[in-house]
Structures are given as C-alpha cells and as structure tokens.
C-alpha cells in the first residue's frame, strides 16, 4: 500500500504506520490482515473528520488531526499509581495496559475464574486465532467511522474476555488502560473483545485513565457479543487527564432474549468522544445504554449512541445525563433505529443536561428512524440549571452553598449512578463525582 503514504498530515502518518506494521504482521491470520487492509482503506477514504461531517458537527477534532502523536516508549507505572484507578472491592482479575502496552506487573490474572478466559488480545491471536475469527472486527461497521477504522487498522494489543455457555461469573473483570505523560504526546489504539456465551452472566469494567497531565490520544474500540439469553453489564469509566484526547467506540451485539446494560461515564479528556452502538440482532433482546458525563473548563465531551432494533420484541432504555461547568461543551446524539421487522419494539430515550454556568453549552439531538408501525418509542431532552428553591431549602438547614450545590449535582446524577447494580462501582462513581465537585460531603456515601 505504498500509495497511501503519500497522503498528507497525520492521516498520512497513521497510514505510514500501517504500512510499517503491515510488514511485521506476517504471523497474523489472513482474515485479520484482510480486515485491517479494508479498515486502513476506509480510514484513508474518510480521513479525520471535520465539523462539516454531520456526525462531527459540534466536535472539532482538529487538535487530534494536527497533532503528530507518536508511539509511546515503555513507561513504568507503580502499583500505587495504578491502584487509584482499579475499582476497589471487586476482587476479580485485572488486565492492565500502559500506553497501550500490556503490563504484567499491574495485572492480576493468577486465579482464573471458572468458565472464563481473560487474556491479552495479542496472546489470543497467537494461540487461538480461530476463536476470534468470527468476531474480531466483524460486529462494528467501520466503513463510516474513521476512528474505529483507524483502531482496526492499527491496534496492537488489548484484552479478550471469553465466558463459556451457562456460566455465571461472580466477580467482575476489570480492564485498565492507563495513559502516562510521555516525552512527546503519544497515541494508543487499545482493542477489546468480550464474548459471552449462551445463558451466561458477566460484568466487565473498563477504565481509561490518565496518570499525570498526559496530552496523549487514546483511540479505543470494544466489541461485546452477548449470546442468547445471556446478561452482560458493562461499565466504562473514562478518567483520562484533562489535557488528553479520547475517542472510544463500544459495540454491543445482542443475541436472542439477551440483556446488556452499558454504564458509560466520562469525566476526563480535553476532547472526548464516545460512540455506544447496540445492535439488537435477534428477537426479544433488551438493552440499556446509560451515560453520565461531566466537563468543566474548556473541555468537550461528546456522546453518540445508536440503538439498532433489527428484530421484533426488543426493548431499549437509555438515560444520558450531562453536567457542564465553566465554558465546557457537551454533545449528545441519540439515534434509535427501528427496522421494518422490529415490530413490538419498546424504546425509551432520555437526555438531561445540567448547566452549572452561563457559559457552558450543550448540543443535544435525538434521531428516531422508525420503519415499523407497531412500536412504542419515546424520547425527551431537557436542559436546566440547579433549582434556586432547592438550594435555598438546603442552605436554610445549615448546609453551605458549595455543599448544597454538589448535593444537587449528585442528586441529578442518581438517575444513572443509582441504576448501577454492582455496588462497588456505584459507590466509586459517586465518590468520583463528589471529588469533582466543591464542598465537604464527598466522604458521605450518597447512593
């Protein structure tokens, strides 16, 4: 693909990287190399989007396009530094990566869970590529998603979680992606594949976190395949540094009568964008897409969601809540597609934004594309401020202004935090939120 290297700017440099890696990928299975080539082609065609692209209208990623991110040199992270980003009280395995590289020291994979395989993607590709072939890169459609295409073309490592059929996994599995300060801002393309067998239950926590004021770029893709009758809870905690760039895509592929819930939290990043896409690919699937994001300063957080009701009797529930302070910007775009076959679909979408300052701004847009006639589909969006009445009530009982404000912000978040079934994550999330807010009540458990 020598011609690709002539493209200009960072698109060109990514493609150069692709060419360079391509040479060393002789060991990769042919099917994967074919997918990668097609992804590189898609990325070359699409380029890095501009605000002229409808999907990126309010999110200007020029700082990502203009930045010559490099591959990070190895960086050591202490266990103490990493521990801050592991949700406490879970007890399950942790697979940790530093700037995209697997870290054996920070991972705990010694006690395997029965019926569960947790490993690095690179390892799995070497040992058992046949298991990945039907899934890796097959569920998400990268032809119109430049960053997902870029990840597919360039990913080097990540995690694989496989849960056998009829297996209830008690402990949640944690995947930790740390970004550190590097001599020059660096890029990583972590890739995750989660395969949950028929009638099984599993919970996966993905944390993307910055250690120190990283100015790097994380471009993550996760595919989650939920077998028939299976139940999967997915938690995504984006805690990048406030100067970092983060683009993520999580793809849920739901089997017959399966249930997935996604709890997508975004607190970090200078520019952060996440696309959550759920395809209800068989009858009677149930999907929850919830999200909570908080931005202040001049940061921007963009959440795009897409629920594709492809088959009948599916349900989807979606609540996204945004908290914006300073001159921060929020973007929410919620697409719900109900295909002609998807009769008896029940879809509900809510988007609420709390503006804590006059200069904060949100652009919110529901996108309902309904091609079936016997469906229930509701959506609502509100943008508001803290209630003066409520603030006065709290203050009139002796609670200081800062505490009163942060109580009300935490209360606003409970629609999302309160719906987290896994107690340690629920508590952790409330703590993280409280820590972002002024006041003295952070230590009091709220949800």
């Amino acid at each position, binding site marked *: 693909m020598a011609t690709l290297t002539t493209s200009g700017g960072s698109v060109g440099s990514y493609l150069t990287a692709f060419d360079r890696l391509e040479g060393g990928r002789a060991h990769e299975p042919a099917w994967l190399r074919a997918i990668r080539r097609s992804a590189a082609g898609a990325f070359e065609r699409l380029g890095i989007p501009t605000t002229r692209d409808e999907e990126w209208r309010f999110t200007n990623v020029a700082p990502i396009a203009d930045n010559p991110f490099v591959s990070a040199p190895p960086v050591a992270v202490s266990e103490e530094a990493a521990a801050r980003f592991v949700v406490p009280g879970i007890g399950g395995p942790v697979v940790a990566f530093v700037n995209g590289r697997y870290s054996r020291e920070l991972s705990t994979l010694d006690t395997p869970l029965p019926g569960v395989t947790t490993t690095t993607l690179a390892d799995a590709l070497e040992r058992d590529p046949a298991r990945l072939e039907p899934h890796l890169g097959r569920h998400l459609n990268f032809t119109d998603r430049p960053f997902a295409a870029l990840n597919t073309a360039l990913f080097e490592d990540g995690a694989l979680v496989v849960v056998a059929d009829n297996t209830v996994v008690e402990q949640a599995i944690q995947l930790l992606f740390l970004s550190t300060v590097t001599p020059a801002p660096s890029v990583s393309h972590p890739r995750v594949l989660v395969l949950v067998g028929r009638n099984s239950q599993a919970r996966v926590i993905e944390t993307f976190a910055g250690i120190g004021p990283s100015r790097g770029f994380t471009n993550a893709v996760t595919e989650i395949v939920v077998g028939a009758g299976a139940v999967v809870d997915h938690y995504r905690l984006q805690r990048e540094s406030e100067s970092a760039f983060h683009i993520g895509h999580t793809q849920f592929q739901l089997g017959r009568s399966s249930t997935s819930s996604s709890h997508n939290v975004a607190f970090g990043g200078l520019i952060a964008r996440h696309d959550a896409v759920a395809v209800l690919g068989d009858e009677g699937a149930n999907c929850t897409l919830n999200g909570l994001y908080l931005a202040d300063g001049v940061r921007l957080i963009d959440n795009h969601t897409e629920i594709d009701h492809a088959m009948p009797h599916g349900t989807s529930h979606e609540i996204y809540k945004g908290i914006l302070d300073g001159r921060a910007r929020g973007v929410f775009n919620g697409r719900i597609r109900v295909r002609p076959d998807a009769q008896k679909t029940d879809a509900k979408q809510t988007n609420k934004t709390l503006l804590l300052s006059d200069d904060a701004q949100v652009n919110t847009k529901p996108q309902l594309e309904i091609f079936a006639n016997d469906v229930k589909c509701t959506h609502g969006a509100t943008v508001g401020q803290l209630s003066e009445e*409520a603030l006065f*009530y*709290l203050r*009139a*009982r*002796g*609670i200081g202004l800062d505490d009163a404000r942060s109580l009300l912000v935490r209360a*606003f978040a409970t*629609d999302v935090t309160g719906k987290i079934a896994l107690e340690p994550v629920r508590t952790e999330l409330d703590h993280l939120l409280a820590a972002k807010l002024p006041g003295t009540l952070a230590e*009091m458990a709220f949800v």
Partner: protein
Amino acid sequence: MLEIKNLRARVGNKEILKGIDLVVKTGEVHAVMGPNGSGKSTLAGVLAGRAEYEVIEGSVTYDGHDLLALEPEERAREGIFLAFQYPVEIPGVNNAYFLKAALNAVRKHRGEPELDAMEFMALIRGKMKLLDMDQALMSRPINEGFSGGEKKRNEIFQMAVLEPTLAILDETDSGLDIDALKVVANGVNALRSPERSAIVVTHYQRLLNYIVPDYVHVLSEGRIVRSGGKELALELEDKGYGWIETALERA
C-alpha cells in the same frame, strides 16, 4: 433575641414589607396572623435569608448581631429555623442523608463533634417517635411524593433534630388533620424552653390552642396593624380581619 426595626423589603419593584417593628425576647412565642398576601411569608423569608427579597430599609438584630449580613446557612447554624409554608421536593437527595449533613453542619458550627451514622440514627429514632414519623420517609428523597401533611410533619421533625433557638413556622398547621396538628404542636412544645423562641405564622386559632402564644400580631399590607395577647387570636377568629381593617380606617 430578635429585634426587627422598621423593616422594608421588596421583590422587584413591589414593596411588600412596609416598615415592620417586632421584638421577640428569649423564651417567647409570637403568633403572626393576617390575610392572604399581607406579607407573612415574606417576613419569614427575609429572616431566613431568601435571596429574592431585597431589604430596602431597617434592620434585624439577632443575638446582638446584624442578621441581614449573614448567608442563609449561617443563619441556620446560628439557630434560626424556617419551617416552609411550601416545603421543597428535592428528588435524588435522601432525607436522612440530608438531615445528617445539616445536623453536622450545625454541630460543627457550635463546636460539637460531628455524629457518625450510628449516633445519628440513634438520635433521630427518638425524634421520629415524637413526631410519629414513618421510618420509610427517611430513606425517600426529600419531600418527594410526600402528602401535604407528611411534608409539614417532616419540617417539624427536622426542627426537632436541629433544635433551633428561633423557630419560624410558616403555616405549618395548614393541611394538617386534627391528629397531625396535635402531633406537630407537641413537637413544637417539646422544644419550648426559656432559651428558645418561636414565631408562628397561622391563619387559625386552633393551632394556638395547642401552641399557646405570648403575643399575637396582625399583619396587613406589609405592616403590623395590631398586637396583643393570645386573646387577640380569639377575637380575630370571631370577627375576621375585616374588623381590624375597619377599625383602622375609622382611626
């Protein structure tokens, strides 16, 4: 304890309090009555520090300090408690959590140690009994979905926990059935002591049968037009506010 001098306050361009003078001494209970829209809630709100009211003249001294210079939370910590005429519903904030935060803010200000969850629960258990409060209300969001009576009871319950030195009750009796009224009055009377005072805003004599005031004032169009002992309330019940207004016109 509380000294209000020529207090004038407005909302926007509308003057609502047009020169109030009132002195409440330690240990006294004052009832404030008067027709709808006469300014009773405005007076209560100004004392508690509600921001939309602008004081344009006069002064309020509380325990020798300028009350109007304090933020609402500082007033609360200094022992002022307003039982709201319309308690606010706050979805997502658990009642018990809120009250513990409030109590500890007040205790901290008083130099008392903060209570942990166990100590707090022990304390409120007794107060719940006093106010005949349903335990379930404690784990619900503040006032959300509470009946009118439950909201009022919750106000007095909060008061019982916070033990203010000056309680201002704004129509706490309206919306209560007779049993609830007795319970609420009990709660208020339990706090009565030579160190504490109260201002009780009401339209009805019946509350004053249970919370017997030392003084009764009638507010009309932003002024106190008449003050007297507890028998003034009886007279008002009998003759209505028209009687005072006519008397004023004649004078």
